[in-house]
C-alpha cells in the first residue's frame, strides 16, 4: 500500500510491508532512489537528505526494544462494526483490506518488551491501518495495555502514529477518547509512569486524549503534532500557516513536548527517560 507523505514537510513515499516489497524505493523529498536494505539499515531515514519514512508498527517495535523481547498481547474480542457502517465500501471490507495489507489485526500493536533490560508495556500505532485511527478496538487494546501496566507496575510506553478517531465507528470512536483517559487515570492511581512518543502523525482525537497527558512526552524529529489538520485550519480560518507549523520543533517551542529526538537516537532517548522514571524510590 503506497503511503503518501506531504512533500512540504519533507516526507517520502514508500511501500512498507506490502507482500511484494520493492527492492528500490524513491525518496519523495530529494528524489534519490534508495536500495531498500540500505534504507532499512538507516531506520527508514533517507541516507541522502534525512527525510523520515513511515515505520510500520512491527518495525517500530524492533527499532526500540531488546531483540526478541517483545511479547504481544492477544487481541480482545469486540463488536468490530458497531454501526454497520458503509461508505464507498462497507467498513467490514475496509477492515479486511487493512488486515491483508498490513498483516496486523488492528491499528495498534501492544505487548510487553524490554528496553535495555527494563520491562515495559509497549503500544505502537500503525498509520497504514486506516490512518492509525482509534475505534473501539484500538481504544480497548490501549486500555488493556494500560491495565496490564498498572497491575504489573511496568511503565507504559505509547508510540503514536494516528490521524485521530475511526470515523466509521461514529460517536463510539469519539468516546474512545474518554475510555483511554479513564484507563490512564487508573495508571496514575497506581503511580505507574507513562511515556508518549509522538511521531508522524499525532493528530485529532488521539492527540486530544491519550497523546497529551503522558508524564513525559518525546517527539520524534519529523513528527506532525496537532489537533486539527493543516488543511482544515487553512480552509476554516483562511490563516496562512507559519513555516514549520505543527512540526516537532513547533511542539517543543510551544511547550507541548519535553524533547525532540531523531529516530536514530530514539531507543537511547527512551532508555534515558525510563532510567529516571523507574527504580529507587
Amino acid at each position, binding site marked *: 500500500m503506497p503511503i503518501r507523505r506531504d512533500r512540504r514537510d519533507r516526507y517520502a513515499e514508500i511501500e512498507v510491508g506490502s507482500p511484494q516489497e520493492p527492492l528500490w524505493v524513491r525518496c519523495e523529498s530529494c528524489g534519490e532512489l534508495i536500495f531498500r536494505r540500505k534504507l532499512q539499515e538507516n531506520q527508514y531515514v533517507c541516507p541522502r537528505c534525512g527525510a523520515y519514512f513511515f515505520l510500520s508498527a512491527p518495525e517500530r517495535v524492533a527499532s526500540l526494544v531488546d531483540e526478541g523481547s517483545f511479547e504481544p498481547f492477544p487481541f*480482545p474480542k*469486540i*463488536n468490530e462494526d*458497531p*454501526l454497520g*457502517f*458503509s*461508505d*464507498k465500501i462497507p467498513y467490514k471490507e475496509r477492515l479486511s483490506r487493512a488486515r491483508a495489507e498490513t498483516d496486523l489485526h488492528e491499528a495498534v500493536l501492544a505487548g510487553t518488551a524490554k528496553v535495555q533490560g527494563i520491562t515495559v508495556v509497549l503500544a505502537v500505532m500503525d498509520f497504514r491501518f486506516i490512518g492509525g485511527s482509534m*475505534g*473501539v478496538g484500538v*481504544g*480497548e487494546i490501549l*486500555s488493556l495495555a494500560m491495565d496490564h501496566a498498572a497491575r504489573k507496575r511496568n511503565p507504559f510506553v505509547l508510540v503514536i502514529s494516528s490521524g485521530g*478517531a475511526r*470515523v*466509521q*465507528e*461514529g*460517536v*463510539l*470512536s*469519539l*468516546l*474512545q*477518547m*474518554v*475510555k483511554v*483517559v*479513564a*484507563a*490512564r*487515570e*487508573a495508571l496514575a492511581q497506581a503511580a505507574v509512569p507513562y511515556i508518549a512518543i509522538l511521531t508522524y502523525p499525532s493528530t*485529532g*482525537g488521539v*492527540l*486530544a*486524549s*491519550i*497523546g*497529551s*497527558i503522558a508524564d513525559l512526552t518525546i517527539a520524534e524529529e519529523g513528527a506532525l503534532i*496537532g*489537533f*486539527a*489538520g493543516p488543511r*482544515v*485550519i487553512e480552509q*476554516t*480560518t483562511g*490563516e496562512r*500557516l*507559519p513555516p514549520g*507549523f*505543527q512540526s516537532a520543533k*513547533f511542539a517543543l517551542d*510551544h*511547550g*507541548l513536548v519535553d524533547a525532540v529526538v531523531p529516530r536514530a537516537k530514539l531507543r537511547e532517548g527512551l532508555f534515558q527517560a525510563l532510567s529516571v522514571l523507574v527504580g529507587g524510590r
Partner: protein
Amino acid sequence: MTEEERLKVLEEKAAELGRLAQENGLDLSAELASLEQKIAELKKSIYAELSPWGRVQLARRPDRPSGIPFVQALCEAFYELRGDRVVGDDPALRGGLAKLGGMRVALLFHQRGRTPEEQRQARFGMASAQGYWKARRIMEVGARLRLPLLTLINTPGAYPGVQAEAHNIAGAIAACIWQMLRHPAPTVAVILGEGGSGGAVALAAADRVLILENATYSVISPEGAASILWKDAKFAEKAAESLRLTAQDLLALGVVDEVIPEPPGGAHTDFAKTVEVVREAVLRHFAKLSTYHLDELLRLRYKRYRHVGSAGPGS
C-alpha cells in the same frame, strides 16, 4: 427543497396572504385557513418523521435555546467566571457558578450567538484552547468546593486555528476529559444542539448524558464525513444517516441516558418550555446521583467509560 425549506416558503406565503388581506381589505380567510392547515400538517410530519439530516439542520438553528439566555432562564443565579488565567478568555465556551433548584453548581456551556453579529463574536460556538483551559479551571473550582458539575453542549467543534494549536488545544481537551472523570461530585451533561466531536466530548465525560430530542452528537460533521469517506460533500445527507448521530440512535447505542422531548415544532418554537423540560430532567438526575457515595459514583463513572463500545451497542 428540504421539508424545512418548504415549511419556510409556506409560512412566508401565509404571512404574505395575511398582509394582502389586511392592506386591501380582502377576505382571504378560506385560503389562509387551508394554508395554515397545510403548515400544521407539514410541521407535524417534519418533526415526527424528521430525517437525521433534518435533525442536523434543526440542531444547528441559531434560534435554538442555548447559551447565555438559556442559562439565565435555567438558573436562579449565575456568576460568570472568565479567563484561563494564562492566555485569555474565550467567548465560545463560558461558565461559572450558579444556583439551580436551590443547589450550588459549577456550570459550563457553549455560546453560539443568535444574530450574525453575536455569532461572529462567539466564533459560532467553536471554542479555542483558552476556552478549554478555562473550562478545566472552572471544573477545578467546582472540584475544590465539591460542587455538582453541569455542562450544556452546543458546538460545531473545537476551533481549528494556528493560535489554538500554539496554545495546546489538544492538551486542553484531554485535560477537560481527565478532570471530568475525576470530578468529586455528580456530573450531568446535556446536549442542547450540536454535539460536535472533540469540542463536545471535552464536556461530556459525565455520570449522566442527556440529549434534547432533535440534538445530535457525532465524531465528525456529516459534511466532513462525506468529504473524507465519500470524497464528495454531496453525500452529507447519507453520512448523517450512517453516523447514527440522532438522539434516538445515541440512546440505542447506550451513549446517552435519556432523550428529553422537545415542544412540538422543535425547541426553537418554545424557549420557556424547553428550559422547563431541561431543568426538570437535570434536577431529577442530580437528585438521583446525589444519593450515591462518592466512591461508588467514581467507580460507576469509570466503568461506564472504560467499557464504552467494548461489548457492542446498547451495553
